[in-house]
């Protein structure tokens, strides 16, 4: 009798049971498995937050290399922790909050995309574990969660919220703004143009309102934060650097590694040239992704102000992941923590590439963890195996991008498109 009652309870509340299990699992991972103490970056965040608490103005009274939204992420744990020893765990809890937000959004999106929830959550947990403690030593879970939140809101038809979340994410790390053209293309081809104006204005307003005060208070300090990033050298984990490492190990062009303004960078005969054109490469690569996303929509779709249908949403998720990978692989800087940006999207990949992407992304995550923190010293000491591991990691990410691109499908939910295609097929 008791067993029957228990089974009935499980049947009725199975989803909540699953949510509770994975939430507890992630709490355990973030608080017991991952290590956030004794980390130079966490200390840096603590110092930034302490400066603000003591009344200093960022960019004017102290230099900072991040956009202003990142300050909120640094400040939140500082409100509860006055010493570095306490700040580390508090920062980890903040990242845990973003991770749990991802978990809930993944459940909702998986159900909406008609994907099996439990395998999706298992994969999410595995990809989070695979990259190691970097998840609680950097604040990249925040923009990753906000990017997913933007897609999540978009999928529910909350377009203004979606664009606002893109703006908030951009204020923390710049990359979420790259998702905006995907949203724009979808809305442009599915909705009356007037309905696009308001969300775009919301996005612009959030960005301007958050940045303007800092710019007014210290124009040079504020612009320095961005020029510092754009002026960086070729960072050693970038795809270009891994190619140069391979060339070095093959006896080709010699490379050397040095500590640049903010990271371990590479110098070689080609490094500076590659670094200078990487922005152009990023632009063209992103433009290619946008164009590919646009192609099935080149005929105007049925006007609908409702949320995207599951195939369209799945396509948006796949292209969001593809876009971020493409940006990473064409960027001159691919710090270890940038891999966190991909984590929320990987379990939600749908279509033919879904099962192929999962295992090899986990290997890419493990290789990332192997390179940093385990063998970073061996990498800049130019040992061959870490160079090969880095190359392998980057090649895996490129394979994933290729598979996502190759497995792209036209939006099957659109009856009009089928009508247009069928006469051609006949």
């Amino acid at each position: 009798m008791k067993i029957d009652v228990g089974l009935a309870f499980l049947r009725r509340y199975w989803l909540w049971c699953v949510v509770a299990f994975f939430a507890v699992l992630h709490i355990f991972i973030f608080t017991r498995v991952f290590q956030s103490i004794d980390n130079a970056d966490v200390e840096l965040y603590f110092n930034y937050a302490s400066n603000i608490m003591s009344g200093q103005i960022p960019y004017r009274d102290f230099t900072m290399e991040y956009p202003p939204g990142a300050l909120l992420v640094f400040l939140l744990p500082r409100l509860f922790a006055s010493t570095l020893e306490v700040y580390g765990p508090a920062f980890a809890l903040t990242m845990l909050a973003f991770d749990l937000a991802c978990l809930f959004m993944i459940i909702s999106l998986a159900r909406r995309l008609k994907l099996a929830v439990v395998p999706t959550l298992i994969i999410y947990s595995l990809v989070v574990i695979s990259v190691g403690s970097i998840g609680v030593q950097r604040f990249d879970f925040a923009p990753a969660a906000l990017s997913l939140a933007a897609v999540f809101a978009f999928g529910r038809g909350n377009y203004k919220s979606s664009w606002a979340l893109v703006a908030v994410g951009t204020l923390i790390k710049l990359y979420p703004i790259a998702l905006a053209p995907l949203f724009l293309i979808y809305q442009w081809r599915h909705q009356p143009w007037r309905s696009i104006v308001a969300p775009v204005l919301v996005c612009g307003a959030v960005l301007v309102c958050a940045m303007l005060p800092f710019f007014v208070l210290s124009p040079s300090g504020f612009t320095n934060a961005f020029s510092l990033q754009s002026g960086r050298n070729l960072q050693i984990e970038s795809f270009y650097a891994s190619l140069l490492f391979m060339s070095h190990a093959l006896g080709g062009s010699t490379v050397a590694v040095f500590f640049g303004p903010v990271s371990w960078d590479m110098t070689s005969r080609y490094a500076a040239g590659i670094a200078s054109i990487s922005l152009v490469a990023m632009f063209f690569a992103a433009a290619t992704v946008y164009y590919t996303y646009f192609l099935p929509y080149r005929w105007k779709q049925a006007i609908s102000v409702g949320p995207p249908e599951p195939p369209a949403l799945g396509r948006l998720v796949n292209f969001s992941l593809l876009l971020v990978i493409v940006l990473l692989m064409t960027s001159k800087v691919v710090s270890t923590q940038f891999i966190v940006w991909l984590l929320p999207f990987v379990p939600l990949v749908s279509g033919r590439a879904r099962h192929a992407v999962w295992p090899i992304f986990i290997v890419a995550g493990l290789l990332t963890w192997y390179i940093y923190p385990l063998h970073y010293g061996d990498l800049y000491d130019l040992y061959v195996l870490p160079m090969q591991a880095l190359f392998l990691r980057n090649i895996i990410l490129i394979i994933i991008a290729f598979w996502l691109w190759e497995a792209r499908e036209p939006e099957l939910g659109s009856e009009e498109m089928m009508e247009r295609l069928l006469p051609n097929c006949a």
Partner: protein
Amino acid sequence: MSIPIARPWFYRTAAVVAFIFAQILVLAMPVKLQEPGDWGFQYATRNFAEGRLTLTHEQYIQQSQEAGGESRWLSSYGLVGDDSWAFTWAPGYAFYLAPFERIGVPQLGASLLSLGVVVVLYLLLARLKDEETALFGVTLLVFTPLYLAMWQRVYMDSFAALAFCGMGGGLYLYYWLSRDRLGVRSSAAVLLAAGFLLMASVGVRYTNIAIFVVFGVHFLVMTVRLHRHRVRFLPIGLFFGLGIALSGIGLLAYQGRVFGSFFNSGSEFAQFGIRFAWDYQLGEGYGIVRRNIISLWVPLLAALPIILAAAPAFVVAAYEKGFFFRRTDNCPELPVHIYRVILGWAVAVFGIYVMYDWTSFQNGARFLFPLLTRFYLPALLPMVVIVALMLRRLSAKLWGSVLAVLVVLGVIFFIQVARIQVYFADGATPPSLSLPAMPANISAVLSEECGL
């Protein structure tokens, strides 16, 4: 999904081109003696070629000094008698290589082995599925970084350990897939060759006994099964046993002659003890396995990138064969009993060497991958078979992309490890590899330590 060209000659020609390209690549890199083992092996081959199975103390010292330098004495020789030094590694490959060494082209020996594996793999995959799959598998095989690296290192037995068990195992599986089509004579010949080569692989590397056991168990199970179905198999099956006996007798005769007993292997006389986790207390043994897993997974990925596809492929195949839950079998071309053998083959190799103590004490990140991963090479063939079968189900673009990436990785990683003389980027020998250097006055030291 198939590529449009479906002519057998196209696939065969393409497989030959792949083999020739790999061969050119291997020959383009000069042979380097990278480890003490290479030196020992080279001298053992020469000694065998000149009919010397054992060395006197004087000959041993002379050859050690000839090899010269740190870490280059004949460490693979051990003292087996009062005035007798013998090669302590499994002797099969040295015997095989001796004639090629005598005519001055040892590379030819390795190339013939490679050709043999390629032919057998092609036949096996063509029988399992089709010639396109066979071409896919052969390309995967010959462009695996570790395969190229060890093919090029002529004076090391790892490649032969793969080749002999690959040919023997491949022929054995081919027999079971083609039993109904082969005549009596062909069946007998294939089984004889399979048995001979499988046992010879144990004579090349003693630990291949684990692979041999997998095939032996399969043979017994199939014999019993056929007997129950009243199928007359024993007369043909005896040829498998005959093949085993032929090469087994050779190995036992060598052991009896050199080590004093048929059942004394060279390992018992080795200068450095070869030990596995089971030789230790439980806790220490567990530590060896843990350290091997942690330190070797990346070198293994670099050495055998095919693992990336093989691990999921084995799992998917197991799932489809109903190992976890019963479901529709999308891979009917791979019979369950054949799947069990190739899985057992791979598990036997990984299972043994994940317990090897020497590799667990090295800093994997500072070595080039062949040094620590070469022991796993015999597991390559089953991985190629499963990957070729499973990936061919994907679209041509997907499997084509995997193949292209693996070929590029294979070429790049091979050249990187083959062009470097020492195993360390900065030219230094890390403490973990610092084998005791051979003293200049080796004669006096040996006299003192060994009482000679």
